[in-house]
């Protein structure tokens, strides 16, 4: 079949210029790429941040033209100016940030934007808008303002906006990086459906491994080159190679890989939970006769209220908007002890953000009291500013708050607000930057020149420079690739383990949280649903699902095995624990 997308020896170079326009350095973002995509395929491109995958994507839409080599979209050379618009019509593109690609203030008008641009007659625009919105399941929302939609819904509108141009191919450039798990599933399901039902070629660029399992072909990029190419099974069979490109594999694949290493007869490249379940049960690998473990409930340490750093005592928060009142938190009581490492989990809109913002006085509770080290923070004589230095809060995408001319100056902002002298501020800044492993040579750099991961470290340093006793981090890994995610989480663990600080991690990624924290608080509809160890919390698989939360996939697997009569302990939450349990019950 004729390829719909064909690149030949594609090279793209970014030129960095100094103020006089002289070239100071050349970065080769895409290096000699030969790519062939057949019509109707679902293709995934994997790679860590900076591997060149987004630059490659922009070539397919003629947003960039090659420095060397050629790109053909449906036989049209993208470097010819007259092909620019036809190519963009045929290969649509969906971007990462859902807010920044919706142009109109009404959903239907936004979907009509593309057809308007290519001169489609009015009646035909309406027909296309209807087809496109129905195709992504957003027809009922056509009169809505995009600001009222969830992230996943916004991305579906963006996909509809591309579909209305009736393209043969859609490039999705990390469409799920800024979404919660529900939104991610929504967007991927939509893309798969368009691929299957309408035969649209899909090129999905992502670093979430779970999303590529269903694709026909996977390409892995590193340093601008395509380094791996094959079916998902072929790619995920090479776990160690993937690790060397700073990529991870789905939890289940990782587990199968580890089990194989331990000697069980399991093939490489297991992709789904059901597949591994079938392999483990069908081949008589596991025995039902192994001794069931008596669930060893760890004695919960008895802690008295005196050890609590922060106490929420029957706290309720109600937002007033004109005449309507929306309760965000209802009667929440929680004790946070010195040295706790807590994960707060909840669906978007569950009230978890409101809850953490009451902890440092950014949001006033409508009812109830909050105590910090025994003192009521609602008291008139309570020093709120001091509280904020003691309960440090790292917001989502904290790099968006950087503003100073150098990194050090920015980190000094917090200590300076405390009224400390310059020498002390400097000392605190250096100490904080060292703790986040910030590279020495970039201390004096402008925060706006840093890479994404470095910016985030600098921003976190800006909070820990105030030497808080409690650190709250809201989705600290949002938008990072797997390597960046592991680094930041490792850093947070280090902060907790080495200095015994109280750390509160807010996240909707169960797998991240399970691996690090010792206590999980699940927030749902403004109340605390569970407050226990990860092992205990994750036994409530059904209830968590009903709240729109998913447990780690290995927990699901062990749960299934347990229900099938195998005496595994279904409390395992990490790959390591699951491996141990399965090996214990295996026949070898």
């Amino acid at each position, binding site marked *: 079949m004729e390829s719909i997308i064909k690149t030949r020896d594609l090279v793209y170079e970014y030129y960095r210029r100094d103020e006089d326009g002289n070239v100071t350095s050349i970065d080769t973002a895409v290096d000699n790429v030969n790519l062939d995509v057949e019509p109707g395929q679902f293709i995934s491109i994997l790679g860590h941040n900076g591997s060149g995958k987004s630059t490659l994507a922009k070539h397919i*839409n003629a*947003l960039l033209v090659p420095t060397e080599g050629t790109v053909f979209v449906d036989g049209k050379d993208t470097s010819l100016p007259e092909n620019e*618009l036809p190519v*963009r*019509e045929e290969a*649509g*593109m969906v*971007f990462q*940030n859902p*807010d*920044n*690609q*919706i*142009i*109109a*203030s*009404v959903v239907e*008008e936004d979907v*009509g*934007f*593309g*057809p*308007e*641009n290519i*001169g489609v*007659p*009015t009646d035909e*625009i*309406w027909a296309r*808008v209807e087809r496109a919105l129905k195709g992504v399941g957003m027809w009922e929302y056509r009169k809505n*303002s*995009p*600001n*009222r939609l969830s992230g996943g819904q916004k991305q579906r509108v963006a996909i509809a*906006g*591309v579909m209305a*141009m009736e393209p043969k191919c859609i490039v999705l450039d990390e469409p799920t990086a800024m979404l919660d798990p529900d939104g991610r599933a929504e967007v991927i399901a939509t893309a798969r459906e368009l691929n299957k039902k309408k035969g649209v070629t899909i090129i999905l660029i992502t670093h979430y491994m779970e999303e590529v399992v269903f694709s026909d072909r996977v390409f892995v990029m590193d340093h601008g080159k395509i380094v791996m190419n094959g079916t998902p099974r072929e790619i995920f069979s090479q776990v160690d190679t993937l690790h060397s490109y700073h990529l991870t594999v789905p939890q289940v694949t990782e587990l199968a890989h580890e089990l194989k290493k331990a000697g069980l007869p399991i093939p490489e490249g297991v992709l789904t939970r059901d597949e591994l379940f079938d392999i483990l049960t069908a081949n008589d690998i596991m025995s039902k006769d192994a001794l069931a473990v008596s669930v060893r409930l760890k004695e919960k340490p008895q802690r008295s209220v005196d050890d609590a750093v922060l106490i929420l005592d029957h706290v309720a928060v109600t*937002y007033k*908007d004109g005449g309507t009142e929306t309760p965000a938190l209802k009667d929440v009581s929680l004790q946070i002890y010195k040295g706790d490492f807590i994960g707060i989990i909840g669906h978007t809109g569950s009230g978890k953000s409101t809850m953490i*913002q009451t902890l*440092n006085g*950014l949001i006033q509770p409508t009812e109830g009291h909050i105590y910090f080290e025994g003192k009521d923070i609602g008291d008139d004589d309570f020093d709120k*500013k001091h509280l*904020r*230095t003691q309960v*440090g*809060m790292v*917001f989502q995408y*904290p790099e*968006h*708050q*950087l*503003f100073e001319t150098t990194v050090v100056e920015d980190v000094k*902002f*917090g200590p300076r*607000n405390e009224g400390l002298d310059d020498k002390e501020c400097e000392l605190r800044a250096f100490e904080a930057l060292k703790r986040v492993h910030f590279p020495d040579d970039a201390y004096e750099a402008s925060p*706006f020149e840093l890479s994404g991961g470095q910016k985030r470290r600098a921003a976190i340093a*800006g*909070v820990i420079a*105030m030497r808080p006793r409690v650190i709250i981090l809201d989705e600290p890994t949002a938008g990072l690739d797997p390597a960046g995610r592991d680094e930041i989480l490792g850093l947070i663990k280090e902060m907790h383990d080495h200095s015994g600080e109280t750390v509160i991690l807010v996240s909707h990624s169960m797998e991240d949280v399970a691996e690090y924290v010792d206590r999980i608080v699940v927030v749902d509809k403004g109340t605390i649903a569970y407050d226990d160890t990860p092992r205990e919390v994750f036994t409530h698989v059904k209830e968590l699902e009903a709240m729109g939360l998913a447990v780690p996939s290995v927990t699901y697997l062990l749960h299934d095995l347990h229900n099938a009569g195998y005496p595994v302990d279904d409390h395992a939450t990490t790959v390591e624990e699951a491996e141990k349990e399965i090996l214990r019950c295996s026949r070898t």
Partner: protein
Amino acid sequence: MLKDITLGQYYTADSAIHRLDPRVKLVATLFFIIAIFVANDPIGFAFITVCLAAVIIMSKVPVSYMVRGLRSIIILLLICGLFNIFLTPGDPIVKWGRVQITMQGVRAAVLMLVRMIYLIIGTSIMTLTTTPNQLTDGLETGLRWLNYIHVPVHEIAMMMSIALRFIPILSDETDKIMKAQMARGAEFDGKGIVKKAKAMVPLLVPLFVSAFRRANDLALAMEARCYHGGEGRTSMKPLHYLKRDVLAYLFIFAFLAAVIVLHILF
């Protein structure tokens, strides 16, 4: 929640005025403004008042919404009124030493007050019955002729509608950055202008950076969807004059003509 802030203050209702073409309403507002400055006697204003009242009733918008716009300028109105009363030369009615109130002064003050109040009410009828989007569309189509003198009408209208889309997003973002900086001990309620201005830096710099980043992303997304200016563009919701619009135009012309005739006769 700042999510629903829109420019203007559209009042959702289904009335004859709401359904009119935005171009008609723009022209009507312009004619109304001309009329209140042409009229300068009680008979003229009585006629305008009757017409205005009729339109208000037709629009189904509660009068309290119309008057709301007046609140913010009440001080300005009072000051202007007082200046007119006391400082207009002419035949004195009351006199205390050097301070005097003249016949002409009172007349000028009343005239000015009525004009200002009608101006506010008249324009708010337009903004209350027309969504910002319709207004942008109306301006784009209605002012298309300005293209001949090289005014980039399409581009201006596009900028306006993008601004409308991003104002709530940026105001949300302002809120977030403010909280993030407060969490680092920043205070935004400092006293004194210098202190206040200084406190704004940690808020404004990230906000500008973010606005530029968004603008960049948006430009790319628009280009990816084949946007290449107004040339060769079709419209999803083109504006067409209907019978009621023609009728409305007739009324508006008749209204202005009547005001001018009254002005000449009396």
